[in-house]
């Protein structure tokens, strides 16, 4: 079986790529996509460690997978509210560039 280190290293790479996207892209929706990448990297690490800790009993091991489930629900809520804000901002500015976005007062 593939060792846990490989999965966690893959998770680290994906997380770094997501952070890089947040830093370099200027469009708000691209920043959202990069944040999704980072969330999924965290999920992958949790699932990998859930398998790693399966000798400690079902309570410990399955709590990792349950945490992934909750993160998924939170990500859905975040996307819904974030895209709503994005649409609201877009009505006034007609550009999704976040650098010029100094006044967000809804």
């Amino acid at each position, binding site marked *: *079986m593939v060792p846990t280190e490989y999965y966690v290293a893959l998770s680290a790479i994906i997380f770094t790529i997501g952070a890089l996207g947040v830093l370099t892209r200027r469009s708000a929706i691209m920043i959202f996509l*990069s944040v999704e990448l980072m969330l999924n990297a965290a999920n992958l690490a949790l699932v990998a460690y859930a398998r790693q800790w399966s000798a400690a009993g079902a309570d410990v091991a*399955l709590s990792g997978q349950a*945490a992934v489930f909750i993160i998924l*629900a939170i*990500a859905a809520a975040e996307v819904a509210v974030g895209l709503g804000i994005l649409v609201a901002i877009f009505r006034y500015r007609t550009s999704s560039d976040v650098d010029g976005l100094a006044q967000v007062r809804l």
Partner: protein
Amino acid sequence: MIVGAVGVITLKQPVHAALSLVGTLLTLATIYVGLEAHFLASIQVIVYAGAIMVLFLFVIMLLNIQQDPGPGAFKWLRPAAYGVAGLAGLALIAAVTQNTPPLPAPEVIDATLAGGGPDAIGTALFRDFVLAFQLVGVLLLTGIIGAVSLVQRKAVSVQESETERPLEAVSS
């Protein structure tokens, strides 16, 4: 999967980047199957690659977002970000690959995780995570109310501008 993730942050067209993210998420679902998390794999495909990404694509097409404008006022930021991200990635990999104990036997993994099925996860979710589960419910309700209120405010402002415009035309 790494190719898909790189595509998310390098492709110019937002639609292409979103589709690249869909590919990344589907690949992640197959990795979940390999990690004995079958329920999470199906949820990943249905909720993430299905619902959330459809929402993204809807917004991209609704707003008609064009290409990324490229580096603007902060031109020095991009190479600096690449350098820092490379260093951080190497440091993360070095940190997480040290001193990991060996995996337990496959029989132990199978017996404990039970394939990551809905019954196993449901037991953990409704017994140990019941408070978090309730709080997520409250959070989702808050998200619904927030999204609806944003749309509501927009509708009110549109109505005001529509009623004001004829008055100005008459006075001028």
